[in-house]
């Protein structure tokens, strides 16, 4: 990696509060252009809220986001031209067919007409849904919807691709194929990849840089080697667990959880 690489995402002192809850608490990080950045953390740590802020879906309570030199808060439509996103939860239209969903996407994302057919065909092949392209999405299983969702994220080739737990619930074969293609986009088109995942091996293999967020704060960031060294661990999974603890998390912490959390903080 050249030391002169440009930062495509710059986040400074970013926070998001929901009432008293600090979902994201004063985080800062940079993502280099053309790199693969993994954003890890336990459930409810603030990953999705951060992605929503980066993708203009939620307004930050405070802080600054710059994407490709453009301020995210001032010029939302310019920012939206620069990224694509695969959401964590469903965002397909159930009453359209698989093909129609992709075609709709290609149209509102300004994919040139000449490229559309070819990209849609390729994406459907990649996720092995070509046979079902004229079926309504409401007839699809959860895994098939997930695959279609990813296929859709790949048909317009943005500067940055956000993937919020893209491979959740997919079998290893599909996961591998999808990552192969993402890697290809990253290398051939110099597309920056920003992703969250719970599969540590994915982050281990793919990411140039890794950041770990917990309770809204970034508690570690750096290359895989740095993280392993700093936590004296042999694998990313170990360093993740060393950093975030081994207790279970819930998506929405209950008041008892928060009490436990405070107790743990005090005990430290």
């Amino acid at each position, binding site marked *: 990696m050249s030391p002169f690489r440009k930062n495509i995402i710059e986040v400074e002192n970013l926070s998001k509060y929901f009432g008293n809850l600090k979902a994201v608490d004063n985080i800062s990080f940079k993502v280099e252009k053309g790199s693969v950045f993994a954003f890890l953390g336990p459930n409810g740590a603030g990953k999705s809220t951060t992605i929503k802020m980066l993708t203009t*879906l*939620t307004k930050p309570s405070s802080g600054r986001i710059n994407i490709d030199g453009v301020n995210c808060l001032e010029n939302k*439509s310019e920012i939206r031209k620069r990224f694509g996103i695969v959401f964590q939860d*469903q*965002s397909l*239209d159930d009453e359209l067919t698989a093909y129609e969903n992709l075609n709709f996407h290609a*149209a*509102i994302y300004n994919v040139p007409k000449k490229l559309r057919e070819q990209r849609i065909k390729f994406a459907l092949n990649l996720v092995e849904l070509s046979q079902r392209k004229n079926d309504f999405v409401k007839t699809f299983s959860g895994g098939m919807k997930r695959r279609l969702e990813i296929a859709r994220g790949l048909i317009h080739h943005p500067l940055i691709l956000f993937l919020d737990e893209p491979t959740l619930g997919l079998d290893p074969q599909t996961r591998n194929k999808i990552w192969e293609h993402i890697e290809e986009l990253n290398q051939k088109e110099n597309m920056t990849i920003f992703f969250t995942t719970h599969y540590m091996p994915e982050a281990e293999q793919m990411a140039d840089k890794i950041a770990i967020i917990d309770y809204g704060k970034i508690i570690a960031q750096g290359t895989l080697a740095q993280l392993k060294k700093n936590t004296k661990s042999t694998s990313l999974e170990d360093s993740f667990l060393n950093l975030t603890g081994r207790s279970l998390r819930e998506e929405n912490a209950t008041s008892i959880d928060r009490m436990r959390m405070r107790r743990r903080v005090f005990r430290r």
Partner: protein
Amino acid sequence: MSEAIYVMWLRQLKRYWRSKPRLIGSLAQPILFLIAFGFGFGPTFQKAGGGDYIQFLAPGIIAMTTLFTAMFSGIEVIWDRKFGFLKETLVAPVPRIYIMLGKTIGGATVAVIQGIVVLMLTLIVGFRPNVTLLPLAFLFLALIALFFTSFGIAIASKIEDMQAFPLIMNFIIMPLFFLSGALFPINGLPKPIEIIVRINPLHYGVEGLRNSLMGITGSYITVNILILLVLTAIMNIIGSLLFSKVEL
């Protein structure tokens, strides 16, 4: 850029055309109203010297159908939010106003089609419109449809969950319909109620639609069209502003 408007419009039409149960279900209400009110109040209306009630009622029911369909198409944004599709359109690299316009025109197209279907049904019950001003009647239908689809989108942009749905139904849509002059003539109403009817945008649509279907020309046409055009433009701007501020 304009392609975004087109695909949003097309999506709306496809969804409408494919959901046959919804299509048929939404025709049940106007038929019921037409039969219950038409045959129920018809004789009394005639005795009071109002003439054939079906002639009076049918345009009101056609307007009602368009109102309901338009509002529901607009409020569909709440569904899109609930089922996730809204996200896909919100992060799209096109100005949100195009998304909003596409949805408005799509919803309005569906509402006009529904209105025309009901117009044909009223013919079976005995409605005999004057066809000379038919294009004008369609213009009024289109204005009603555009106004209320934008209105629905404006409401849905501020409301996050489907719980609010019966509230919208009972406190906005039903009063708009009942106090528009769709069911009864407004001359002779108590003053406060007449004022309410006169500030109801639907009133100008109903009146325009009824007169043009009866072939009555006059200055009302220009006045009503102007009022509806201005209101539709304002509502569209409000809807666009609220929609462009939608967050998840």
